[in-house]
């Protein structure tokens, strides 16, 4: 490989020793078999770049779904000391609080399978998706302020979903510290008609079923039984979050110059957590986090409406939120590190919080088990539900992977898809797919991604999260 050299620590862990301006070493979770995929692009160099940032604690970490991103690698995790450390919008990404929600149901896959086509069609009609789509409501002024402060609770209070949904979301669907006055007028304009929209790219709504149970006790607590239908929703803060990030980058580029922070990559621009710029970003980011919580809550309601339109109200009533995770976010958390309890700012960019048993942040229903960790795969293979562990708390600031991770560039995927009837291929695999964008299905085809099972097995073996169930896709709406 070019760039940094990796030293094997154990079967699933590799270290990038400190070189040059790195303040800490890097650590990447992967098996030897996965190594060629993660060393053939710039992802490992990006792990090293993150290690240059002031106040980074422990290691610059990467999960097994690591791939080349911008600034931080996708799959990157980094914790920063509150006094010495920085906050970087590039460690969160443009799609602030991009995340995944999982719903269970009482529906049996065998009974629903013949209706998958009309169900995917109903999702297509009910959930706005694709470029330029508008949501079911336009929210401006004081009402938008409330969205930015209350998150999913705003949506529930207006009839989009149920109070029980909110109790099973990371942060209970509402991040504290949001200042609705900080996002720009332009961010507010972009967000005004995008609540309840899916977007495009890798965002989706997926109908699946529980295919295999690995952990009976945890699966029972999550209401996941073999052969039952599940719904997975993957989207984020839409144009609102993109604009908050873009606006913040302009501030952070200046801040990095002001505070004399040397950057190996401009996209890592940042400001001290204690600085006005750092505090403002955290408060604006929290507003975007809450926008995303409200967005997924409204989509959850639209998904239930879609199911009710095909299978009746009773079917929708039985669809309950299992959990929701955020995988593009920075959070202030308390962690035991080097023998003492410390408040840290943990950046997760394409990584999922995976808090172990006993953490107060985890809903009471799952607290003894560890947090549900939702790992979507590609549209043709599996997705997984895992649970967080004590080991993740010790090694990765309570973090695990977020998905399969891309293997092919979009250019390579489009080339590989040329001349193929991917929708028919997917149908032969037992998956009905609809997409708004013409290029989406090609770019998102299963071969474009790593095998999520390999990624999950690595996380499981490393002990960062343990397998609860495997989900098999039956129908997918892509943006």
């Amino acid at each position, binding site marked *: 490989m070019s760039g940094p050299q990796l030293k094997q620590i154990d079967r699933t862990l590799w270290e990038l020793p400190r070189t040059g301006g790195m303040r800490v070493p890097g650590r990447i979770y992967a098996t030897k078999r996965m190594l060629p995929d993660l060393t053939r692009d710039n992802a490992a160099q990006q792990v090293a770049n993150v290690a240059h940032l002031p106040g980074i604690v422990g290691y610059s970490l990467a999960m097994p779904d690591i*791939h080349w991103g911008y*600034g931080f690698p996708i799959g990157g995790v980094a914790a920063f000391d509150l006094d010495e450390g920085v906050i970087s919008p590039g460690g969160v990404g443009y799609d602030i609080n991009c995340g995944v929600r999982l719903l269970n149901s009482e529906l049996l896959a065998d009974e629903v399978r013949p209706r998958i086509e009309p169900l995917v069609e109903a999702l297509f009609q009910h959930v706005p998706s694709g470029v330029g789509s508008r949501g079911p409501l336009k929210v401006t002024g004081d009402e938008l302020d409330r969205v930015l402060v209350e998150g999913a609770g705003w949506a529930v209070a207006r009839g989009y979903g149920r109070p029980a949904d909110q109790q099973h979301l990371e942060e209970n669907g509402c991040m504290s510290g949001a200042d609705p006055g900080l996002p720009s007028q332009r961010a507010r304009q972009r967000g005004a008609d995008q609540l309840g929209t899916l977007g495009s790219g890798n965002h989706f709504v997926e109908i699946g079923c529980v295919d295999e149970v690995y952990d009976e006790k945890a699966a029972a607590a999550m209401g996941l039984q073999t052969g039952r239908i599940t719904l997975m929703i993957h989207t984020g803060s839409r144009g609102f979050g993109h604009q908050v990030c873009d606006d913040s980058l302009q501030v952070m580029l200046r801040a990095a110059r002001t505070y004399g922070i040397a950057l190996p990559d401009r996209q890592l621009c940042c400001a001290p957590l204690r600085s006005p710029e750092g505090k403002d970003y955290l408060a604006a980011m929290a507003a975007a986090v809450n926008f995303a919580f409200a967005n997924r809550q409204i989509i959850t309601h639209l998904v239930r409406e879609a199911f009710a339109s095909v299978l009746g109200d009773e079917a929708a009533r039985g669809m309950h939120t299992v959990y929701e995770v955020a995988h593009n976010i920075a959070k202030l958390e308390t962690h035991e590190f080097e023998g003492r309890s410390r408040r840290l700012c943990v950046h997760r960019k394409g990584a999922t919080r995976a808090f172990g048993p006993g953490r107060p942040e985890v809903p009471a229903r799952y607290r003894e088990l560890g947090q549900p960790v939702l790992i979507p795969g590609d549209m043709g293979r599996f997705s997984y539900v895992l649970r967080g562990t004590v080991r993740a708390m010790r090694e990765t600031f309570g973090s695990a992977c977020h998905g399969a991770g891309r293997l092919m560039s979009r250019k390579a995927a489009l080339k590989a898809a040329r001349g193929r009837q991917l929708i028919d291929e997917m149908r032969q695999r037992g998956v009905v797919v609809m997409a708004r964008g013409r290029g989406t299905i090609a*770019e998102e085809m299963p071969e474009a991604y790593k095998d999520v099972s390999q990624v999950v097995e690595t996380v499981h073996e490393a002990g960062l999260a343990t397998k609860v169930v495997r989900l098999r896709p039956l129908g997918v709406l892509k943006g």
Partner: protein
Amino acid sequence: MKTARGEWLDHTGDAGLRVWAATLPDLLVTCAAYMMRSICPAGEIRSRTTRQVVVEGHDLVELLVRWLNEINTLGSLHHELYMDFRITLLDLAGAPPHHLQGVVRGEPIDPERHHPEREIKAVTYHAANVRREGGGWRAQVIFDI
């Protein structure tokens, strides 16, 4: 170099673009045209609305990234697609910030006629560069898809 040209790069997570042009204005315009064509084929877009683009930047990279982000944002904000791009002012003299102004033309998205292929979340600073090459200019940007 007489004709501006571009190529898409293999970037695992997102999408990268490299463009060559004889002049800086050509370079900026060609980058914008490639970006918009990746969202929607140019043949489907008519020139009916005009938007002004005004950005500033510390250097050429910031000007390029902000020019492209501004066009992408205008499209998102107004639900429009663009096909015609023009630079009206490029002021690199003196101390930064430098100034760039331009005009873009296009039309509102019409689901009956337009078939956008993808959304670009943003244009990033990662690996972005603008440099002289072969008597002309070369630029590179990575898009967050």
